């Protein structure tokens, strides 16, 4: 069983809620989590497709984008892996990215469960 606090920085989620009025905070958070849960697998898939053709820029761009949303949602582990992927694509052959992408995928599954627990099943 995933403990949300092990996977998510709950203070980051609180900061997201605080940024908007109480009237909108729940619906916005649900909307943002849904966007994240929809976009993250697409970005991870895009990274996997880019590796065999040596498209380091595409891997780096997907990791860069995913790091931003992971940070705002408090998905620290994902943000760290994305940062490592960005650094790797700047300095090494992109083939070495596969283990990190696997790690990112695994961490995403944990984050997904943790977010669903936090929102009490409201996110799709």
């Amino acid at each position, binding site marked *: 069983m995933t403990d949300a606090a092990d996977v998510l920085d709950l203070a980051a989620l609180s900061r997201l809620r605080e*940024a*908007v009025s109480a009237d909108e905070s729940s619906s916005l958070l649900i909307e943002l989590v849904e966007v994240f849960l929809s976009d993250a697998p697409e970005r991870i898939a895009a990274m996997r497709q880019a590796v065999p053709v040596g498209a380091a820029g595409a891997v780096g761009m997907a990791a860069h*984008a995913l790091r*931003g949303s992971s940070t705002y949602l408090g998905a620290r582990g994902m943000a760290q892996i994305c940062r490592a992927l960005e650094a790797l694509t700047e300095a090494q052959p992109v083939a070495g990215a596969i283990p990190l992408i696997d790690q990112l995928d695994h961490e995403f599954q944990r984050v997904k469960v943790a977010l669903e627990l936090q929102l009490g099943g409201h996110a799709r």
Partner: protein
Amino acid sequence: MHTNGHRILLVEDDRFLRRACEVSLRQRGLVVIPAADGEEGLRLAGAEVPDLILLDLLMPKLPGIEVLRLLKADPATKNIPVLILSNSSRERDMQEVMQLGAAGYWIKSNLSLKELGERVMGFLGANDSGGQTDSARRG
């Protein structure tokens, strides 16, 4: 929603960040015009002539650096202040955009949405009175 009249063009390709920033800034009374990529941002800058542009750097179609270059080369848009919102902390990126005429460089991962809103309001207030904050010059 009461607005204070300031219109912000938000050019951000990541829809999570675009939506989060849009709602947060709108709650402060700002009119937010969202753009999903550099091409759309450039088009909306010319059509809407906003009071401020928040511009991401790493985007598909047209990178933020090219958007900035084109905005500053166009007499119709060159006087609109552009604040760069990026996750890159590379010194050369910062230097390049400041030389091109950006009004500031803020690192997204260093800012909560609340802090972003506060900084934008501070920048607009300083700009209205003819000055700029230090934080607007360097994020």
